[in-house]
């Protein structure tokens, strides 16, 4: 047990606990249209799926990032999910109709796909800090499980209360999507040179803002439709 080991352990724990916010956000957005009594089960399922997926991805992270166009496709997929999640009609809280649009399996499936793509963005950070110590990674991720289950519940409740957190969540997904898309090795090769960091950030913020605008506009349209 050297000082180096403890430093690596501490940084892995901090990184995993921080990144768990992404998992919690995706899970909260996916389960919010389920009836409340089923949300908890969906959150457990989603967390389990996300954790298993992240572990699997970390072991093959370096190979994955070299697969041509994987990050580009992942980025596009994330945009689609972001738009789908922010436009999801919240029947449960806003109308008297029962039978929400999303089923438990649909919610789990969305969590799985969104987390797979988000994890691609995250695994490099985790793998880098662990320096090849897989035991550390597994420990850190295990530690983040209760935090994700609890945090996703907290976020889902806050989303019921503050509509704009859903829009913000969609914006974050859009931001990550652009960064992933532009960093795809095959795409960079095709373009000839990588997009500058400044332009990349500007485009990421622009798409994030666009998704927030779509979310705001669609919720406004819904409110207007209900009032007529």
């Amino acid at each position: 047990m050297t000082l180096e080991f403890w430093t690596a352990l501490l940084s892995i724990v901090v990184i995993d606990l921080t990144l768990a916010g992404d998992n919690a956000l995706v899970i909260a957005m996916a389960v919010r249209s389920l009836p409340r009594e089923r949300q908890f089960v969906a959150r457990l399922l989603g967390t389990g799926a996300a954790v298993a997926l992240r572990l699997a991805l970390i072991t093959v992270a370096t190979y994955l990032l070299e697969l041509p166009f994987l990050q580009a496709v992942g980025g596009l997929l994330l945009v689609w999910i972001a738009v789908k999640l922010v436009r999801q009609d919240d029947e449960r809280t806003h109308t008297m109709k029962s039978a929400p649009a999303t089923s438990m399996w649909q919610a789990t499936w969305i969590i799985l796909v969104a987390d797979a793509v988000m994890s691609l963005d995250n695994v490099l950070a985790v793998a880098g800090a662990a320096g090849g110590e897989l035991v550390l990674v597994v420990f850190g991720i295990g530690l983040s499980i209760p935090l994700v289950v609890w945090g996703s519940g907290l976020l889902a409740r806050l989303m019921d209360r503050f509509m704009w957190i859903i829009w913000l969540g969609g914006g974050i997904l859009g931001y990550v999507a652009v960064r992933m898309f532009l960093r795809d090795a095959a795409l960079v090769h095709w373009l000839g040179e990588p997009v500058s960091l400044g332009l990349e950030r500007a485009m990421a913020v622009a798409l994030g803002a666009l998704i927030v605008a779509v979310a705001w506009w669609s919720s406004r349209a819904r409110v207007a439709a209900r009032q007529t």
Partner: protein
Amino acid sequence: MVKKLDLALIFVLAWLLLGRVLIAVMRDRLVP
């Protein structure tokens, strides 16, 4: 008075922001 809900809100926003900053820093360091 700060309500429990406000505290929860501040907590999750800080959490998400920290995550994004962390990833940006780590990635820029690892992938120049």
